[in-house]
C-alpha cells in the first residue's frame, strides 16, 4: 500500500458509469474495511487530474461517446500510466476494459487505447447481451466467473496477456475466452458491479494492492446464494 490507507480511485464517474459501476468501488471499500484496513475512495471527474499514487484504479463501462472521450483524457493526463509503472492495480470493466488495450471502436471509428494491455477490440456481428460465465485462469486460484454482459465489441488478445477465463456461457472476448490480465492489471466484460457476484475477484484485487497472501474470510452468505442462483439459471437456460 502506498500510504496509511488503501486508496481507491474511481476514474471518471461522469463518463464511465453507465451500468452501476459504482458498485465495484463500494464493494472493494467495504471488504477492505471489514478487514480493518482504512480506505479512501476518490471519485475523479474527467476535468480533474488523476492522482498517480493510488492503490487501485477502477475504469467502468460507458456509451461510445464517453468511452472515446475518456480514453482521450486518460492519454492526455498520463496519470494512469505513471500509476501502472509504480505497480498500482487496475480493474477495467466493459468499455473500461476495451480502452486499456491498443485500440477500440466507438461510433464506427477506431480509437487509440491506453496500450496498457496487449489486446485490441473491434465490432462483433451482433451485440452480446446476457449472462456470462467462465472458468477463471487456474493461476489466479478463483472460483468460476459469473456476470452479465452487454457489449458490441470483440476483443483479440496478444501474447503479452492471458485470458481471465474460459467461457462456459455467453460471449466475453470471442465466445472462447473472456477478459484478460497481466501483472496487476485485469479487465472483464462482466459489466457494471462485476465484483458483487465475484467477491473472490474483489479479494484478489485487494491482495494485489496490499501484498497480502491471504485475507481473513468474510461472511459471503448472500453473494454465495446469488452465485448459486445465477449458476442454476444459466444451467436451466441451456437445458
Amino acid at each position, binding site marked *: 500500500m502506498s500510504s496509511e490507507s488503501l486508496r481507491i480511485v474511481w476514474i471518471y464517474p461522469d463518463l464511465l*458509469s453507465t451500468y452501476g459501476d459504482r*458498485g465495484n468501488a463500494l464493494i472493494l471499500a467495504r471488504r477492505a474495511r471489514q478487514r480493518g484496513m482504512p480506505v479512501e475512495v476518490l471519485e475523479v471527474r474527467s476535468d480533474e487530474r488523476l492522482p498517480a499514487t493510488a492503490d487501485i484504479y477502477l475504469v467502468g463501462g460507458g*456509451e461510445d*461517446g464517453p468511452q472515446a472521450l475518456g480514453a482521450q483524457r486518460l492519454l492526455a493526463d498520463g496519470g494512469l500510466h505513471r500509476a501502472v509503472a509504480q505497480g498500482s492495480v487496475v480493474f477495467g470493466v466493459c468499455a473500461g476494459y476495451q480502452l486499456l488495450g491498443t485500440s477500440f471502436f466507438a461510433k464506427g471509428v477506431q480509437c487509440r487505447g491506453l496500450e496498457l494491455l496487449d489486446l485490441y477490440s473491434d465490432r462483433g456481428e451482433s451485440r452480446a*447481451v446476457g449472462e456470462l460465465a467462465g472458468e477463471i485462469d487456474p493461476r489466479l486460484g478463483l472460483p468460476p466467473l459469473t456476470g*452479465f454482459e*452487454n457489449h458490441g465489441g470483440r476483443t483479440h488478445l496478444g501474447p503479452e496477456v492471458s485470458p481471465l477465463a474460459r467461457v462456459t456461457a455467453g460471449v466475453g472476448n470471442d465466445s472462447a475466452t473472456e477478459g484478460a490480465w497481466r501483472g496487476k492489471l485485469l479487465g472483464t466484460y462482466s459489466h457494471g458491479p462485476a465484483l*458483487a457476484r465475484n467477491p473472490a475477484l474483489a479479494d484478489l484485487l485487494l491482495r494485489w494492492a496490499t501484498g497480502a497472501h491471504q485475507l481473513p474470510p468474510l461472511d459471503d452468505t448472500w453473494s454465495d446464494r446469488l452465485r448459486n442462483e445465477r449458476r442454476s439459471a444459466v444451467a436451466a437456460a441451456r437445458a
Partner: protein
Amino acid sequence: MPLRAKVASSVSRTAAALSRAAGRGDGSVIGGWIGLKIDPDLLAHLSAGRAIALVSGTNGKTTTTRLTSAAVGVLGRVATNSFGANMPSGHTSALAKAGSTPYAVLEVDEHYLAQVLEATEPHVVALLNLSRDQLDRAKEVAMMAQLWRAALVRHTDVRVVANADDPLVVWAATPPGDPARGINPPHVTWFSAGQRWHDDSWVCPECGSTIQRSGEQWWCTGCPLRRPEPHWVVEDEGVLDPTGAWHKVSLQLPGKVNLGNAATALAVAAEFGVRPVDAVSRLGIVTSVAGRYAQVDKDGRNIRLLLAKNPASWLEAFDMADDAPTLLSINARDPDGLDTSWLYDVDFAPLRGRQVLITGDRAYDLAVRLDVNDVPFQHVRTFDDALRSVPPGRLEVIANYTAFQDIRAELDRVI
C-alpha cells in the same frame, strides 16, 4: 372512417372485452393488436378529428398522462390509455374503446414516439426526461435523444412542452430549422419540475463537452446549449404559470415528483386553451394511477404500492415513502430488463432504521446490494409472508415493473 377501419375498431373492442372477461388482463393491449392486424392504419383513422397530446419520457409518463387527461377534461371527453399500455396497440385499443371524443391524451413509450407522432398527428407532445432504464434492451440514452430530435424535425408544426432541467430533452426538443425550405424549429414551452437524477447528462449531446451545473442552472462548456428559461415552474406547494400567477396544487399523489408531473399537465392542457385556474382543482381527484400509489387495507395492514422502475424513480419512491416498514421486490423479467446492475446506481441508505423486507425473483441481487449499503433486511418468499412479518399499520411496497404487477395481482388487480 373507412369500412375496414370500422370493422377493425369493432373487433378490437370485442377482443378487449373478452380479455377482461376471461381475467387474462386489462384488455388494454390485445384489442389494439388485433385491430392493427386487420387495418394497419387503424391508429391514424382513430386519431383523425381528435385534438391529441402525446406524453413521453423515461419516468412519470403514466402519472402525467393521467393528470393531463384530468386537466384537459375541463373542455370535454378525453380518450386515454390509462393502464400504461403505451405502444401503438395500446393507443389503438384506448381510442377504439373510447369511441368518438374531441380530445385524447396518450402515454407513449419513448421508443415509439416517432411512429406515434406519424400516425396521430398530435397537437402537443410533452417530453419529460431521458434517463437510463433497461440498458440491456433499450437504446442508449443519447441515442434516444437523437431519435426524438429526428422525429421532431419531421413534425415542426407540433407544439412541444419540454423539460428545461434535462439537457438531453432540451437538445432533443430544439432541432435546427431549415429556413431555406421554410421549416421553422418547433414551438417549445419549457417547464421546470426539479430533477434529482443527473448522472445521464454530464456530456453534451451536441458537442461532447462537459456539462456544468450550478443550482438549477446547467450549461455546456463547449457550445451554446444551456438551460432555457422555463415558462412553468414548481414553487413551494404549487405551480407558477407563464403569466407569473401562482396556483396552489393539492394532490392526493405523494412526493415532489408528482407536483412536477402536475406542472407538466397544466402546461400541456394550456396548449389546448385550458386555464390553469380551471384545471388545478381537477388534478386533486386523481388518487392512484394503474395501481401506483394505491392503498389497500388487508389483515390490519395499510399497504401502499409504489412503482420504481429505474434509478431515477427509486430516488423518487424513497422521497414519497413514509418512515414505515418497507417491502422491496425486484424481478428481472423481459419487461423489467434482464440486468440488475442498476441496483448500484441507487443509494438505499434512506431505508436505514426502517424494517426492510425483500422478495422477488432477484431478491439475492438486492440482498447483496443492501448488505454493501449497510441496510439490514429480512428475506421473505411471498407477499403473505411479508404481511405476517410486519406490525399492523402502514406497509410501503416498492417494486419494479413485473414485481409490482405480481403484487397488484395478489391484491385483486387494484387500480
